[in-house]
């Protein structure tokens, strides 16, 4: 049965290849079918597809909406045109130089852009576009000023000079390649990390994913592709001027991406086809720009996922009906053990020690001189009323907040929790009070993002889907299935995480955290919203994890659950530790009952 399903999936993939290649083949016959008017339009679509595939990675995967990419196209176009007209270099070398320079300048602009975020991000990219446009107008010696550069040589191979037909075929090949690269990227760790960072920066960082690295990668790819398409455009049309690369062009590029569907591989193709053909089809002299604006607005308003995204959202649930139920296997102890990093087997030794931790938020003293020792291979629970500082303590340990004062020791080594991702790399994983799954990714992919740091692959290998990367990808799929088996997840693993029921979300989140192979796992109210059955499963899971040598710090309100699973309980109230001890001892301590019940009543009345 399983094999049958796998085979049908294989046939579907093969069918995809056939359809794709047939489409490219038909397009390749274009020059002999249509006149130069249509060929020129097809060529322009190709140019847009190349640029916008890069921008799709930036906008759709990374969530960075750049309104200045016409500037990067201009850099590629002008670098190559300048070098080719001035020094007579061949197209192939100047296009390469154009891509490199575009990459360099794109990198310069990526740094402030990624740091800024939000509306400032858009402003930097707009300002960048304007600066490039101005430089092109003013720097006569390089750009020829407002009159641009004329007489740019067409590319040549041997004695063959590329005319429009040749350029079109060339652009077709490049854009098909770019699309393939974008597809490969989406199916790699890099792509998943990009989407993870876009959707939830904090959760991604807690898995050890560095925001800057993945977003910079997106910026770099889009810069190179923009530079390349700029160079091709310039050499095909023999003339460029600053007017081609203004604010409107940048907006148009963004429009193509969102119209097609940000994050959808085929989105730029659909977007470019519509944006290039529509004005030609409509026989209107007036209000053409208003039409552009209207389309842009309508897409944002009615089709926020773009055309491809909306179609896919409609189709894929219907297709998934025929897809597989998932293989549920019982893991042998050896297999289960292989999922974890070499466990710290020194039970009874302290794994984490905190001394004198202080944390203030403005006037609020959230953590008052907290000292705590967590022993390896145990489940250590933090309990206390709402607002006692439990989550704050977890955030401080995991590096989300920096403490004002205090010392940390991890496995006997001093630890300075600088950032979530740095702490994650030290083998501390966490979940969050409210589910922070990556909704755009499937269940399986969510778990795979946790593996990103363990099985690192190069960006180039991911883009090209080299055999080695392919293998490691397959390994990651298997490991993730195993992890889902471990936590006992039985649902559809190729379903988007956004459609999961709440209890399942919490379990998948734990599986994702486990994927980073932590030695210390921080769980923030994992049982909240779970059914009794699920809580029982969770209890078994925690015992299994401890059996594999993990240490768990648990924040929980279900007291009987805490009592059953905990080895040690620490009680916090008003940011202070009231006491630490065995569950029986702590939960019957009169001070604890007083603090707990007293504040609980207050908290309960505040909620209503």
């Amino acid at each position: 049965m399983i094999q049958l399903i796998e085979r049908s999936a294989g046939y579907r993939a093969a069918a995809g290849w056939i359809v794709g290649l047939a489409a490219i083949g038909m397009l390749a016959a274009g020059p002999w079918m249509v006149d130069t008017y249509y060929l020129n339009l097809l060529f322009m679509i190709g140019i847009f597809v190349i640029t916008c595939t890069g921008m799709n990675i930036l906008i759709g995967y990374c969530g960075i909406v750049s309104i200045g990419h016409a500037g990067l196209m201009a850099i590629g176009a002008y670098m190559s045109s300048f070098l080719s007209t001035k020094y007579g270099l061949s197209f192939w070398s100047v296009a390469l130089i154009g891509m490199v320079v575009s990459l360099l300048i794109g990198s310069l602009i990526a740094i402030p852009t990624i740091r800024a975020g939000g509306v400032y991000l858009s402003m930097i990219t707009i300002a960048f576009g304007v600066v490039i446009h101005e430089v092109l107008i003013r720097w006569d010696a390089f750009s020829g000023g407002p009159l641009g550069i004329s007489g740019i040589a067409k590319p040549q191979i041997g004695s063959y000079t590329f005319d429009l037909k040749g350029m079109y075929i060339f652009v077709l090949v490049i854009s098909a390649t770019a699309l393939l690269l974008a597809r490969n990227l989406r199916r790699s760790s890099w792509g998943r990390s990009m989407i993870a960072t876009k959707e939830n920066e904090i959760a991604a960082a807690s898995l050890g994913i560095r925001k800057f690295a993945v977003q910079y990668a997106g910026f770099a790819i889009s810069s190179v592709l923009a530079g390349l398409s700029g160079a091709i455009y310039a050499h095909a049309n023999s003339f460029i001027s600053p007017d081609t690369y203004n604010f409107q062009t940048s907006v148009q590029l963004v429009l193509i991406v969102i119209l097609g569907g940000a994050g959808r591989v085929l989105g730029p193709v659909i977007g470019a086809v519509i944006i290039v053909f529509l004005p030609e089809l409509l026989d209107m002299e007036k209000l053409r720009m208003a039409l552009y604006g209207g389309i842009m607005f309508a897409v944002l308003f009615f089709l926020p996922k773009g055309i491809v995204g909306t179609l896919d959202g409609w189709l894929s649930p219907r297709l998934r009906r025929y897809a597989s139920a998932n293989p549920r296997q019982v893991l042998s102890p050896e297999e289960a053990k292989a999922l974890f990093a070499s466990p710290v087997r020194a039970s009874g030794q302290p794994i984490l020690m905190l001394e004198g931790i202080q944390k203030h938020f403005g006037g609020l003293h959230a953590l008052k001189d907290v000292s705590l020792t967590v022993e390896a291979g145990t489940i250590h629970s933090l309990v206390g009323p709402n607002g006692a500082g439990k989550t704050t303590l977890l955030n401080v340990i995991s590096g989300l907040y920096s403490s004002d004062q205090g010392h940390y020791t991890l496995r006997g080594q001093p630890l300075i929790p600088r950032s979530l991702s740095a702490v994650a790399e030290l083998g501390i994983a966490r979940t969050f009070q409210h589910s922070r799954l990556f909704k755009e990714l499937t269940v399986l992919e969510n778990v795979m993002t946790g593996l990103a740091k363990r099985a690192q692959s190069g960006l180039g290998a991911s883009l090209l889907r080299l055999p080695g990367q392919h293998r490691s990808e397959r390994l990651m799929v298997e490991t993730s299935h195993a992890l889902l088996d471990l936590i006992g997840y039985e649902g559809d693993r190729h379903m988007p995480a956004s459609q999961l029921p709440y209890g399942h979300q919490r379990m998948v989140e734990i599986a994702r955290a486990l994927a980073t192979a932590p030695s210390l796992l921080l769980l923030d109210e994992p049982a909240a919203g779970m059914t009794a059955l699920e809580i029982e499963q969770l209890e078994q899971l925690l015992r299994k994890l401890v059996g594999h040598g993990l240490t768990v710090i648990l924040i929980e309100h279900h007291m009987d659950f805490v009592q059953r699973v905990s080895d040690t309980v620490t009680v916090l109230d008003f940011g202070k530790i009231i006491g630490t001890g065995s569950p029986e001892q702590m939960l019957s301590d009169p001070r604890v009952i007083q603090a707990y019940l007293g504040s609980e009543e207050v908290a309960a009345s505040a909620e209503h």
Partner: protein
Amino acid sequence: MSLILQLAISGLSVGCLYALIALGYSLTFVVNGTLNMSQGQLVMLGGVLMFGFAELGHLPFFVSFMLAALIVGLLNLGIERLAIRKFDKGVNSIEWVLSTIAVGIIIQDVALYVNGPDEGVTPSPMGDEMLRIAGAGIYWKEFVFLPVVAVLLVLLILFYKKSHWGLWLRATADNRTAVEIMGISSNKIVAVAYVLSGLLAGIGGALMSTNYAVSVDIGLPLGLKAISVAILAGVNNPKGIVAAGLILGISEAFIGQYISTAFREMFVYGLVILVLYWKPMGLFNARKTIVKV
């Protein structure tokens, strides 16, 4: 000496314009963190309407002025409803950047369709006389920009500090839910902020048309320049914005004179990139964001 004075006062009137338009961005940004990217086109619309009413419709100057400002203000109400409310989904959502850019494109092209490409200057009640200060000259009709902007700034600050709406506006900026609990619809407050911002744009455009030629394509470059002013000053700092607008206007004149006329634009936008490089949240951004988990 008189040259320096001349450069300073020449830059002043342009600076006033930048300040006025940038104030419009500030009004909406403090309330819900959105900027209307079509603000420049609204200014254009104010100017074109002013010219249309006063010169072509032969309405009295102040009637035309009021009409232009009101129409643009009300239009902005519609923009808020259509292009902002649905797209403002939190700190990092910027769909509204794109939706308001789209609105700007539509406004500009429809204005072109209705009005044609003509450029026009509305005769100012101040006449065409020149004011001479120590050898430096400025037209009265330009000079009047300064008191108008000053009065508007004072009114705005009074509004913020003294009126109920001003209080609610500030409260919404701090905590939207708290305002909702008090029984005031935060949507309504955002709408008020947008109407005010539109009024400022309309006033800016109408004022502008008394000394500068307005045509349908002046909007976008003005809007982009003004947004740079707002960012350099810190978008939620009205006094800073006025100061930055004036400084920018004046420094453009000086850069033109002493460095090169060619590098003005590069200077402004280069500065925006540098400032955001150094302070990613804007120069004087007082708002702190606390990550909530």
